[in-house]
Structure formats: C-alpha cells, structure tokens
C-alpha cells in the first residue's frame, strides 16, 4: 500500500513551505547581522520567550520528533525513558550549571574551560569534544532527513535525501549565522509543536484514546483478570491489526525490561530471570547518560549566554522545561497507535522501518476522511523538516564556531583579521556540512533515537563532569580536568563507535559489506552480554570514571590550582548585582592579559 501511494502533492506542499520559510528567514536576517560578534552569539539581546522557544526548537531534534515514536513502537515501555530524560536533563542543567556558567560569562564551553583554568592549552583540548559530540548528534538528524525525503518521494535513494538536506542547511548557515538561527529556531519550535499535537488529536478522535489504545496490548496480569475496558470498546473503535512475526509480543512490549533492554541478554540465550538484573543496569545507565548528557551538549549551553542576565537565564530554563515537557507527551502516542494500526512497519528496516511511523500514520485516515489524511501527513512531514533542520543548523553553528573561532582563529592563524575569520566561518560550515552528510549516509540501518542517546552518553562523560566539577569544586586543576574529560569522553566515544560498527555489520544491505570486518564482534557480544550492555550504554561507568580521575589527578597536582581561585569561585557563585564580574575582568586586564 505505501509503495502504491506514490507521490502526494499535499505532503510535498507542506514540506516545501517549511523549507522555503526557513531559508527565507535565514537570508532575511543575514542582511541584518554584520559584525563578527553578531554572528557568533546573536548580539546577546534575545527576550525570555523567544530564547526559550529557540532553545526548545533547537533541542527537539529528529530523535524527538520521529525517533521516539519509532522506538516506542519497536520497543514499548523501555523507550519512554528517552523522552522523559530528554526533558528532565534540563532540570540538572538548571540546578547545577546554568546559573554559575551564565555569571562567569564566556561564549562557549571552550571559553569557559580557558577562563576557569587560565589555560589556552586546555581550550584546545576542550574544543575537540564540540566536534565529537556534534558529529554523533548530526548522524541521526541526517537519517531523519533521508527517511523523510524517501517517504515524500517514494523510490528516492536514502543518501540523496541526506545530501540534499545537508546541502540546503549548510548553505543557510554559511550565509545566515546565528542571529538568523535564533528567530528560525523559535518559529520552528511552534511548527513542531503544532505538527505533533494536531494530528494526534485527530487520530485519537478516530481511533479512541491513548489509554484505550494501550489497553489493546494485554499483559500477563490482564490475562489473569481481563480488564472491563476491553469488553466495552465502543463499536466505532477500529480493531487493531494483526502483528507480524518480527513484532515483540504484547507482554514484552508493554512491560518494563522489554526488547530494548534485554536484547543483549536474549542474544546470549539467558533466561528471563538471568536477564532482568542486566535490564535494570541498562535502564540505569541510560538514565545517567540522558540526564547528565543534556548539560553537556555544546549547542544548548551557548544559548544561556544570549540571555540579558542570570534571572532571565533561569526563567528561560523554566519555560524550556514546560515547552519541551508538553511536547514529549505526544510522540509515544504515535508509537502506540503505530503498533496497533501500522504493524507492517515492523517487517521493514532502515528508512522504511518504524522511524517513519510519525510521517505515515495520518495517511491511514485517508480512507475515511479523504484529503484530511494527506494534509495531516503533510503537517507531520513539515514538523520533521523543522526538527532535523533546526537541530542540524544549531549543531553546525556550534561546530563551525569551534573550528573557525578556535582552531583557525586561535591555533592556526592567531593574527588573522575579522574579515578573514568571517570568510573562514563559511568554509568551515561547508567542510563540516560535507562530513556530516557522509556520516549520515552510512547510518541508515541504525535507529535515530538510539544514536542521539549515544551522543548524550559522550557528552555525559566529557563535558558534564568538566562543568559540574569546575563549578562546584575549587580544588580542580587543569590537568585533572583534562585527564578526566579526555578519558571518560574517549572511552564513551570508543564504545559507542564499536557498538555501531558491529550493528552495521549485521545489515543485509551495502553497509553490511562495508562494515563486514566488525562482524566478529557480534560473536563476542553474544558470549559477553554484560560487556555488550556496558558498551552500548557506557554512561554508568564512564561518568564516574571521569569524575574519579578528575579528583585523583587534581589532588596529585594540587600546586597548580589557579592562584585567584577564590575570585573565580566568587564570580561563578556571587549574585551578579555585586558586580564582581566587572572587577574580575579589570584585574585580568591589569595582569596583562
């Protein structure tokens, strides 16, 4: 059926409008952003409402819009941890990091790293992770792009979609800079919110409520005492469709510790009793990665500096939590409905699999309501475009700034003029956009949401310990911070890459051949399910490892604690009204900086 339903003009129209509006806004504001500081941090003059919408717009990526629904459909309850922790990670950011960092007033995480330890060398180390985390985060965005374009234009190869979207956004960023992005991001939040909620309300009114659809999935407890609800289903509620063989059974799907967290143990042939503790470990590690990782995302922290003061920064965070929290209630509903009414997606893989459930589900009501189905599907496609375009733009700006501002402007050519740096910004954007497209083309067989989770795990083991410890412990030294961040972050990066390579080796398509060298890893994983879980979800060991190393090495190098540490801590923690920041800057200039 989906193959036959070739090309739908409604869907194309809505998607095209989103893309055109995005690009138009980017170009329009490019005219008004002239100076270099405008380009990098949006002139620091953004109101709370706009900034909160912009942060949310940037944060809600293809993983949130498409990936969660796909993963809930595929794995059931366990996948709910993703939306919850994506939203709650912000709380951690608010509690421990947002305020102090804002008071310290540096543009980016590398700026903070340099300022806190008076060390340009450390800045160069810290900047690497902007690129590592950024590339891990762009891969799933690119998969979202390829999946959506392959849905709109049936028959279009996946990689073409990736290349087209990558090229469009890269051009937009190279010409617009961040001032354009703030406005675009804010508008795109509202597009996404509209696009995820309106189709849900229509679908639920056709197919019955959220709870009713969940109750169609019986658990073992229900079989013992069948709930009354199932018998009193209204006659208008359509019956769910038969599940194909590849779909997980009801009981496993709706209960905790289902297919997602028991995969490694099942592959190793363990019994359910043996695998349950491993599932619990998996869940905990996932929670640590997502909650701590949010605080370490390079493209999110930058936005705290676009607030006029610390109070505004806190209000912004509150609004962000409300805006994204409301959003995250909806995607799992798509997953639940998809399981009941679009089960044929279970049989497909790659860009034709469950990751496209959000796009395709509204089409189902076309039989009954005609054109409305196409319009709603067009709306969710527009939302998907807004999702991967906004996140990819934000990441591209962060990564390009790191490359142009830090690597070029400070390491390679410190004497370059502002005009040269602006020019370099454009070339760096094109370079990073190109690499992202290549990486994105490789990852079709991997789940969108899973890949984003890995980016969070790397952030959790590198930037989170750095920020958290630097803000709250005055005994930290540069050597301690660098050792912890590098070891934790690289360990997480290495295990995530290894897991992805061995998963790609299982693919039946071209990627399987490309990564065939890693197929031996899969035998090893089958023999060692615990190691597989620890590699797949590394946060539970890599975060403590990073923090532990920071403490040990800092104690060993106690003599190199920055001399004016008391002043630095005061700037981080004292209310802005006391004006310590200004004094600190003057002192530093006095010292010949």
């Amino acid at each position, binding site marked *: 059926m989906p193959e036959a339903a070739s090309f739908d003009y409604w869907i194309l129209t809505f998607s095209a409008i989103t893309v055109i509006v995005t690009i138009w806004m980017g170009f329009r504001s490019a005219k008004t952003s002239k100076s270099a500081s405008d380009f990098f941090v949006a002139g620091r003059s953004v109101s709370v409402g706009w900034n909160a919408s912009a942060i949310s717009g940037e944060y809600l990526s293809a993983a949130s819009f498409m990936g969660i629904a796909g993963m809930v459909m595929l794995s059931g309850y366990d996948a709910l941890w993703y939306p919850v922790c994506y939203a709650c990670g912000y709380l951690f950011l608010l509690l421990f990091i947002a305020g102090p960092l804002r008071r310290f007033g540096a543009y980016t995480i590398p700026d903070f790293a340099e300022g806190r330890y008076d060390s340009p060398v450390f800045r160069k180390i810290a900047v690497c992770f902007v690129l590592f985390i950024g590339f891990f985060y762009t891969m799933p965005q690119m998969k979202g792009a390829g999946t959506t374009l392959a849905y709109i234009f049936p028959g279009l190869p996946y990689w073409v979609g990736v290349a087209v979207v990558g090229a469009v956004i890269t051009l937009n960023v190279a010409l617009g800079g961040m001032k354009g992005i703030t406005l675009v991001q804010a508008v795109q939040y509202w597009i996404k919110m509209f696009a995820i909620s309106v189709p849900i309300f229509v679908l639920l009114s056709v197919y019955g409520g959220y709870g009713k659809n969940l109750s169609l999935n019986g658990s073992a407890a229900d079989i013992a005492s069948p709930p009354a609800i199932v018998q009193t289903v209204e006659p208008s509620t359509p019956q769910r469709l038969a599940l194909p063989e590849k779909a997980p059974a009801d009981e496993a799907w709706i209960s905790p510790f289902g297919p997602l967290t028991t995969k490694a143990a099942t592959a190793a042939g363990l019994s359910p009793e043996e695998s349950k503790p491993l599932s619990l470990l998996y869940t905990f590690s996932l929670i640590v990665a997502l909650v701590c990782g949010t605080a370490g995302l390079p493209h999110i922290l930058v936005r705290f500096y676009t607030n006029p003061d610390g109070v505004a920064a806190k209000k912004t965070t509150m609004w962000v939590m409300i805006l994204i929290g409301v959003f995250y*209630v909806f995607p799992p509903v798509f997953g639940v409905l998809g399981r009941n009414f679009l089960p044929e997606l279970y049989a497909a893989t790659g860009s034709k699999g469950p990751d496209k459930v959000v796009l395709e589900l509204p089409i189902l009501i076309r039989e009954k309501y005609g054109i409305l189905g196409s319009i709603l599907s067009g709306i969710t496609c527009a939302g998907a475009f807004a999702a991967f375009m906004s996140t990819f733009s934000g990441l591209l700006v962060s990564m390009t700034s790191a490359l142009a501002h830090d690597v070029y402007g400070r390491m390679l050519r410190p004497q370059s003029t502002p005009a040269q740096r602006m020019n370099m910004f454009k070339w760096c954007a094109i370079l990073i956009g190109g690499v992202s497209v290549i990486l994105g083309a490789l990852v079709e067989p991997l789940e969108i949401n899973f890949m984003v989770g890995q980016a969070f795990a790397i952030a959790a083991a590198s930037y989170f310990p750095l920020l958290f410890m630097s803000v709250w412990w005055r005994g930290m030294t540069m050597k301690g911070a660098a050792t912890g961040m590098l070891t934790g972050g690289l360990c997480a990066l290495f295990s995530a890459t290894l897991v992805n390579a061995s998963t790609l080796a299982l693919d039946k398509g071209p990627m399987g051949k490309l990564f065939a060298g890693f197929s031996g890893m899969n035998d090893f994983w089958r023999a060692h399910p615990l190691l597989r879980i620890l590699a797949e979800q590394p946060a539970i060991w890599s975060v403590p490892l990073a923090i532990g190393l920071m403490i040990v090495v800092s104690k060993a190098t106690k003599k190199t604690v920055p001399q004016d540490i008391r002043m630095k801590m005061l700037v981080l*923690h004292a209310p802005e009204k*006391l004006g310590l920041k200004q004094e600190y800057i003057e002192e530093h200039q006095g010292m010949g900086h």
Partner: protein
Amino acid sequence: MAHQNPDHDDFIHSEEFLHHLMRRQLRLSVACAAAFLILLFGLPLANYFVPDIMAQRVGGFTLTWLILGVLFFPFVWIIARIFITRSMALEEAEVQLAAEGNEKRKA
C-alpha cells in the same frame, strides 16, 4: 560598587562569604536534585521489585506507563519552579548579607 580596595580585604572577597554562598546554593540544588533522583531511580526499582502493582491498569494505561509517560513532566516542573523561586530569594539575601558584612567590617 565598593571595590576601591585593591587588596580585597572587604567582606565580599572573604573566604567566609564565599563558603557561605556556595554551601547555601549547593544545599538548595542538592535537595531539589534528590527529590528528582529518588523518583527517577525509584521507578525502575519499583518495576523490578513490585511488577504486579506497576502493571495495574489505570484507564487503560499500566500504572508505570502513566507515571513515566505523563505524570513525570508536571512533577519536574514543580521542582524547577520551587528551585527558581528559592534561588532568586537566595540571591537577594546574599546581596543583603554582603552589604551588611561590608558595613560591619568598616565599623
């Protein structure tokens, strides 16, 4: 701002003030984080140890699905709201304290 004093022996720059400041901020943050972490890590434990209770149906949802998929968000908003209100009050109090402390030193 009263910082004509180049060698920083006023109250704002004292060890005492910094210590006090960080301790109060950390205590507030840790208390809020604890409320959040207990629920966050408690839910998988509840799923593990009392699966039957968590699998009970509430309006079609299983109890654990309802908590995680819907109720968790408002819970986090409440914590965030409390934290923001308290931390703004705390900043006001610190500014007050700093002013008083400086007066005392001068006297």
